[in-house]
């Protein structure tokens, strides 16, 4: 099978642009990235289906002239899934905007706290210096 170079280049550019946008913090840009990337991926299926041909309607065209219908069915499924994903990301971006006034994904607070402890070379609050010698008192409960 020979691939179609134009389609391959278009897919590559779309996917690269999409991945770049996915690395942004703003959910709106991520959404655009998702849309661009998914279109790029769909084009890959067109490449996989081989050269263009006649509609796959039995009885109207000879079997060898027909385009492969299966990748098109897959692309259709992928498009539907992308639509649902976009709707969900838009909702999330809007909710984030409602709550924070912007739609940027922030760092995890707990992550940051633990990282700061590590930078200060400090012990966590849960560290407890217990020596295992019997002093007759219950140190844990103090």
């Amino acid at each position: 099978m020979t691939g179609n170079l134009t389609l391959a280049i278009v897919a590559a550019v779309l996917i690269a642009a999409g991945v770049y946008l996915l690395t942004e913090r703003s959910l709106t840009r991520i959404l655009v990235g998702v849309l661009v990337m998914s279109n790029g991926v769909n084009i890959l299926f067109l490449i996989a289906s081989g050269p263009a041909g006649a509609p796959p309607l039995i009885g109207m065209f000879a079997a060898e002239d027909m385009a492969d219908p299966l990748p098109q069915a897959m692309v259709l499924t992928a498009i539907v899934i992308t639509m649902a994903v976009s709707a969900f990301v838009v909702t999330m971006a809007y909710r984030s905007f409602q709550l924070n006034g912007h739609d940027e994904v922030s760092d995890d607070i707990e992550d940051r706290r633990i990282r700061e402890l590590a930078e200060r070379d400090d012990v966590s609050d849960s560290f407890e210096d217990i020596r295992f010698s019997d002093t007759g008192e219950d140190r844990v409960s103090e």
Partner: protein
Amino acid sequence: MNNLLTIPVLLPMLGAALTLILGRRPRTQRLVSILVLLGVVAAAGTLAWQADTQGVQSLWVGAWPEGFGIALVADRLSAIMLTVAGIVTLAVLVFSAGQEEDEVRKETPVSIFHPTFLLMCAGVSNAFLAGDLFNLFVGFEILLFASYVLLTMGGTGSRIRAGSIYVVVNLLSSSLFLIALATTYAAVGTVNLAQIAQRIPDLPEGTQGIIQYMLLVVFAIKAAVFPLSAWLPDSYPTAPAPVTAVFAGLLTKVGVYAILRTQTLLFPHRPLTELLLVIALLTMVVGILGAIAQADVKRLLSFSLVSHIGYMVMGIALASIQGLTGTIYYTAHHITIQATLFLVAGLMQRVGGSSNIDRLSGLMTTSPLLATLFIIPGMNLAGIPPFSGFIGKLGLLNAGVAADTPLAWTLVGASVVTSLLTLYSIAKVWNRAFWGTPVSFTTEDEEGEDEVHPGRPMPAVMVLSTCALIAFSLLLTLAAGPFYAYAENAAEALLDGAYGLAVLGEVVP
């Protein structure tokens, strides 16, 4: 032909539709969901029995001629995963039914919780039964979509933040999956797993490698294998307890199942042993070191979840019957035990008012029952004999010793150390949260606000469903002989090519 194969997928979908209609009648809704999941467990149990006695069960959906339609396949591996998944989802659903009315409104708005939960079960079943790479993709998408909704349920700030990370990471992995699908289709002209398995050895080395690595990366993201695991501890802990429990128990294991399936079925001639062993090693060690640094029980459990995925990858990497048996048994054990521990973490949050061990103390005095519920699965997770965790780890260690390479021996050492560190992290929670004197919770948090968390009693339904899961994990221990033998048969069947024969029958490749 076995029409029973459609039940675990269709029944939850129909149940989801029905519970959506019944949104205003919470009791009927709960009844419907529980009946549906009981039906799934019954169907999965029957399939497990049939797969064991009558060989691999398969069905070409919609009576399409063999080789053209979508195939559903249940061999022993699929059936055992399906059964364990069914039991765990059922227990978690019953647990969530135990919440009080006000909590329900805040944590799991029942009108959408039940339909979404059932849809997720349908997705999980579909992924386990898919005999077709594209159908596997669809199964993943169904369960992911349901999980997006479950994770962001209520739409609070922290859940939206956690949800954003989860959604974006999974979007990326889904896109990669699609790219892998397009590549596979272009290379072999089919997406049916059994047919791909027949055709793939004829491809050039490079093409085989691309397909294999792409599928591996996709499923490693879903299974949270290091270095693709960073999303998990960030996104799981904020969700409601029942949601986290079922996510932690099931969703990552679907990824493990997919790695297991594609590695053994499509690439038995390219096991990638060294690469996977190194990944398994890093997953174990990095995961458990992360767990030790945490103060929040849910985050600690999330990190230990990542670390224990390493054990499963180790068995897959060894690609021997012993290793695969260990992985299958360990996965079944881990689904149960991880879900139980997250449910217990939910109960701790109820009783103690917080899931942070800096704010918890003396839970043993407050609630001896809760302490018992925690220590049994906790010790099981750490692999203390005689629990099922020990049996699974022993199987994997045996497989590592049998492989007898320097790297396999390193892995054996690392898994013992990981097990010990797991025990340490569990003991840390035990010391800090359960021992000591009970404290009242009027601590000041970082913003200087008073956080008052009065402890609440544990509803009987929640305790009973957690007990049921613990009982099931004990059953895995007590009946380890038959279970382990079943896993061993499943592993042998993975390597002897019964799958392809059952699916394709006499179809000429």
